[in-house]
């Protein structure tokens, strides 16, 4: 998992990434300076819970992905079934390109989590 996150972290604009459970437990993380595991986990848990609840309340099924854009950066949350991949990026990220890398990383992480329950 560390290797996959480390590779993802090499993408231009990525500040850090982590695998976090719904209740905010960090399974693995590779974060750049300025990002703490605790802060990322708390932020991710709060966003995931609110979004899952909204999806359920609006009969939209299971949350798969949430791409969030802010003034100076972006965040991506991808469902790994038993946890979520969280990517924090700055403004320089080319999301069209990096989303492919994120999807690839999520696929590999999902396999690892399935094989190692």
């Amino acid at each position: 998992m560390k290797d996959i996150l480390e590779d993802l972290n090499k993408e231009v604009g990525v500040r850090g990434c982590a695998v976090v459970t719904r209740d905010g437990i960090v399974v693995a993380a590779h974060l750049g300076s300025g990002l703490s595991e605790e802060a990322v986990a708390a932020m991710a848990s709060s966003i995931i819970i609110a979004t899952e609840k909204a999806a359920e309340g609006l009969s939209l099924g299971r949350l798969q992905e949430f791409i969030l854009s802010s003034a100076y950066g972006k965040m991506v949350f991808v469902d790994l079934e038993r946890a979520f991949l969280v990517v924090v990026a700055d403004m320089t990220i080319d999301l069209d390109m990096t989303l492919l890398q994120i999807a690839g990383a999520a696929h590999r992480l999902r396999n690892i989590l399935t094989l190692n329950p």
Partner: protein
Amino acid sequence: MTPAFGRPGKGAHRRKLERELARDPTAGRAAELIREYVRSGETGRALEIARKAAAEFPEAEDITRLLSQAERLWRRERITHLRSTVEGKSAKAEEYAELAELLNQAGDAGAALEACMDGLAAFPKSPELHLRLGGMRMERFRESMLAKDGIAALQALEKAIEIQPSTSEAALLLGQLYLEIGCTSRARELVDKVSRLYLNDERMLKLQEALRRAEPDRCDEPERACKDVERAQCLVMDLGGEGPHGRPAPVFTSEAMAARLSKVPSFAGFRAAVLLGEEGATMASKVEKGIDAGKVAEAIGDVIEAAQSGSLRMDTGAFNEGVVKTSEGRIYLRTVPTGRFAVICGGETKSDAALDYISAVTSLGSQ
């Protein structure tokens, strides 16, 4: 170009009018003569007379209107001429610069920028073209308040000065830009260097006066200052306060949005659209049968609150927009002045259709 009433024109009638106007100048005679020259296609001469007449009869509305018409016609002809010139191989940098300036005056900022860029491709060391580019980017920055426009303006003006340190016009513009973004010390430094070239110049006097009243540096790094301006503008727009340069920020009112939501046709898979105010209250909504608007607003409000708080905690600035993909649909979230707009749609929705819908509603929403 020295406008003069007494210069003979073509045709007996025009000559007669010229004589009469020279002998007894009135706004009516000047207007008739301008119309004659416009009719005969001599727009350069028409413009000369119109400028002179506008200076002599500043209260005459007819003259003001004719001057504006003559300017438009002359500009159009000149643009056509310059376009054909720059297509040839012998074009000069100043011709590109003039073309850019005229296109900008004609309101075609995109084409003006393109002309500048074409010119710079041919003459990368032309200070005049860098100056024009900087000036246009600066105008755009004042309108858009987007950091990228401000940074492009800084770079172009700095380049103009680097190529030709005596380019005082670029220094004046750059000084104004520094002041506007809060880099006061840099503005003072630059203005001190060029002020002697602008003795009694109104713009320089105004800038010096503004600098005397200016607050200390808000930021010493110009590029970061441009980003701060963009960020501050987002906050101002969110709060519904003043927009760029004191203009009122566009505001989405409940009534206007409700009207627009009912006018813009929905798309296949559409379930609901809601506009939430700053406090999370529903300002306007449109929902399909069987969907509870209150429930939608509550769910969306919670997501936005979490997204906003998460963005700030990760130091990525204010939340702007988001897309939630689920197994059976999507939620699109977008920040609009004074609130957040959300569209909920089912799995059969094509993302282009949803995005077109959001653009149609939100672009009409400002007033």
